[in-house]
């Protein structure tokens, strides 16, 4: 198929359709409303389910229900809406049913604003709801990658019976870029063996629950859940590297911040500053091991984020205490400029050279 000029939100919605998404439940909120708009038009045309719920709380519980029935299901929202969904998200995690969430992040805390930020990094990677779990969190930096990761989201969710988040900032949702959509996958008719379909002659009842009353069953369940998370950590880490081979200074960034950093890296290389870019694609599981390896020969890191400094803590944990980790970024809805990153890197490089 040929490349089309696609808006991020529309691309995500259409990619979900092409991935065979059977049902969508959601509630409008800027800057992701185009996802609902696109699905509202397309899903009924295809005989699939689109439902605008009365609130995010209702939407997440509809997602939970459809997931229990074995449907390929998703929702999307933006920061405050994701906060409202957290109870349901935790129930879904505990019930081990697959579901895909898209968070097009906006400025916070509170109602905040509608500008692009990455201020929900901690929320989605660490505390997507109460209890001990992590969703898989995917962070696209281009429209093409958003399309590709959307299909992957459903596959991973079903492979591990887990939650998958696509976390992007409002800029990726709102911008347009040439990209290619995959061919259409029809909705899968057969249901997974664990799904709640009615007994249908089976000799046992399928039960999906998030309630384990005693300490012993809940401890046992958590052990199983942690083992699954460990398996995901072992298998599903994804990242991208730009000019890391000879780098003496590495920028860590994802999403739009990584795009801006990429521009800065290219310009700084023209000044012979040996800087590279490390871009996590999975924010959870975080590419801790690879960053640790790089820290063996790279003395300085710079975390560029569109927030007050959230991923930087994962970077610090990965690279250890002997390595410098600086921060550049701000909360509130501002896309950093390449020039700001260039200035910061030049200062860091001068310091490194002075020591050497």
């Amino acid at each position, binding site marked *: 198929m040929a*490349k089309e*000029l696609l808006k991020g939100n529309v691309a995500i919605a259409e990619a979900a359709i092409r991935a065979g998404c059977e049902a969508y439940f959601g509630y409008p909120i*800027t*800057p992701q409303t185009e996802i609902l708009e696109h699905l509202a038009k397309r899903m009924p045309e295809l005989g699939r389910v689109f439902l605008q719920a009365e609130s995010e709380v209702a939407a997440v519980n509809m997602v939970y229900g459809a997931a229990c029935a074995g449907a390929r299901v998703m929702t999307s929202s933006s920061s405050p809406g994701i906060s409202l969904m957290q109870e349901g998200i935790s129930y879904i995690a505990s019930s081990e049913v697959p579901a895909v969430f898209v968070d097009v992040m906006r400025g916070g805390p509170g109602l905040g*604003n*509608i*500008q692009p930020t990455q201020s929900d990094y901690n929320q989605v990677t660490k505390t997507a709801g109460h209890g001990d779990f992590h969703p898989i969190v995917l962070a696209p930096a281009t429209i093409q990658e958003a399309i590709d990761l959307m299909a992957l989201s459903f596959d991973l969710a079903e492979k591990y019976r887990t939650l998958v988040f696509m976390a992007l900032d*409002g*800029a990726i949702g*709102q*911008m*347009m*870029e*040439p990209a290619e959509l995959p061919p259409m996958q029809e909705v899968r008719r057969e249901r997974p063996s664990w799904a709640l379909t009615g007994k249908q002659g089976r000799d046992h009842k399928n039960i999906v629950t998030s309630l384990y009353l005693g300490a012993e069953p809940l401890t046992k369940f958590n052990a199983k859940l942690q083992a699954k998370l460990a398996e995901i950590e072992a298998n599903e880490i994804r990242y991208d590297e730009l000019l890391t081979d000879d780098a003496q200074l590495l920028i860590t960034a994802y999403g*739009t911040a990584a*795009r*801006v*950093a*990429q*521009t*800065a890296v*290219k310009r700084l290389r023209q000044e012979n500053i040996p800087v590279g870019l490390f871009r996590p694609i999975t924010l959870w599981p975080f590419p801790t091991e690879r960053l640790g390896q790089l820290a063996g020969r790279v003395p300085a890191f710079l975390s560029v984020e569109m927030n007050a400094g959230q991923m930087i803590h994962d970077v610090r944990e990965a690279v250890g205490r002997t390595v410098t980790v600086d921060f550049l970024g701000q909360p509130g*809805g501002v*896309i950093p*400029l*390449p*020039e700001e990153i260039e200035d910061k890197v030049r200062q860091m490089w001068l310091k490194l050279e002075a020591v050497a």
Partner: protein
Amino acid sequence: METSIIIAGFGGQGVLFSGQLLAYAGMDNGMHVTWIPSYGPEMRGGTANCTVIIGDELIGAPTVAHPDVAVALNLPSFEKYAPLVKSGGLLIANSSLIPAKSNRTDIEIVTVPANAIAEKFGIVKMLNMAALGALLAKRPLFTLDALLQTLHEHLPARKHHLLEANKLVLQRGYAVGMETAVPA
């Protein structure tokens, strides 16, 4: 090589569409492109803007502090972006709505009576095409014919009867751009 273009004006002046048209034309002509609108509180005030980047390599940052080209379709946009254009850059100003002059001597300034051209050769809504014509005269990212081809392909069929008038407006804007001398 990358060219960054900010197009700004009132809602309804075709700001977002003309940016998309440039992006489509860039894509159709084998270039890398990004298009990003302002969608924040500033557009609630009635002005809209978008940033288009066209280049021969993958594009990183989708926004810029200092664009190579600014197209100001109204006075507030002129006041905001005239000071921001990169030194050596280009400013296209819709003189039908912008009585002011810029005192910058380090950029090229083309004044296009975009509303007047659009009203004479088509309808006033085509003023964005007059500005794009002038832009292409000064920055030949692709030919006028290539842009017309893109317009033909991306304008909804129900608006195809407007193609001929759009062409005339584009050509007139292009002529104004060509007539504007490069400052010594």
